[in-house]
């Protein structure tokens, strides 16, 4: 087995999967899955998304809410638009279960994997943002009139820049 310094392993990861940005852990009691749109990543310029998912870090309560990923731009002004359609319900998500952007066709439903700890790598690489613009990738769950009482999720974005100086940062 080859042995690399951690910095070398990170280079391998970045070249293979793109730059990885993670949010902190958002709790359902106050922040996410409250029937509103919540910004999770700020996007400067144009980026190409290799992977975008949320991973449950605490088991969800038994509430039949749904989630989808959206994009909103403040400069230029672009109203919130769907990156994916609503997922299936997030009822009682187990720790380690992921809500994944499939990423091929705009508006394809986000996918909740059947088993915690196992999910597919997104099939496509979606492009979001505008040249020189500023926007946000959001988690929206106004598609079902249900909020999630308890639980927590961390979001992960892997991307590469597609315009000069483009980058993404976590909102929280």
């Amino acid at each position, binding site marked *: *087995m*080859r042995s*690399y310094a*951690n910095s*070398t*392993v*990170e*280079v*391998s*990861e970045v*070249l*293979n*999967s793109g730059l*990885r940005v*993670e949010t902190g852990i958002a709790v359902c009691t106050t922040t996410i899955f409250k029937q509103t749109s919540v910004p999770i990543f700020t996007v400067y310029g144009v980026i190409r998304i290799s*992977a975008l*998912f949320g*991973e449950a*870090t605490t088991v969800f309560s038994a509430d039949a809410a749904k989630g989808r990923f959206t994009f909103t731009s403040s400069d230029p002004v672009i109203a919130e638009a769907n990156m994916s359609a609503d997922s299936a319900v997030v009822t009682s998500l*187990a*720790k*380690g279960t*992921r809500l*994944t952007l499939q990423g091929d066709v705009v508006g394809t439903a986000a996918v909740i*994997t*059947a*088993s*915690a*700890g*196992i*999910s*597919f*790598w997104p*099939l496509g690489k979606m492009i979001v943002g505008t040249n020189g613009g500023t926007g946000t990738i959001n988690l929206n769950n106004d598609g079902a009139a249900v909020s999630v009482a308890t639980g927590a999720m*961390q979001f*992960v974005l*892997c991307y590469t820049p597609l315009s000069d100086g483009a980058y993404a940062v976590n909102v929280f």
Partner: protein
Amino acid sequence: MRNYSQNTQDFASDVINGIEVETSAMANATYMIQTQQEIFNVYGRIKVNILYGEVVTDASANATTLKFNFTSTTPVIGVADMTAASGSLSAAVPGTRVVCLGTAVATGALVDAGPGISGAMLPMIIGTVDGIGTIGILTATASQASGTTKFVIDYVPLSDGAYVTAAH
């Protein structure tokens, strides 16, 4: 033709394909007997680019099928299929691979039609942030009586500090 050191070639492979970890050549009569066997330890969350078993010495003439699965001890996640069962490995010759195709979760693992040629594989995400688990195999239909198989994974971390070790 350019001339690179072996280290540079290894690094090129690891960057493009992911970091490679291999098991030893595992005895089929011990590890393909229709019981759960763990082949790789997974620490954290990883992106699996390639996962397969390759016949090293001839498999016995038993219609063994194989699937890959994942189990986590932290957090506790019961064994769950990464693939469905493959076709038969009966009398598979050296160089024949049984491959995790990696499209939708639980797509059937694919046994090569002939040794040395495998189709494309797509990545999967395995493990959880800060978790500890194992990738395993479960054979069915018939146990193997002889032969050896080496398992190979190529991966990149998908959470800080994530890595994989061979269980054998």
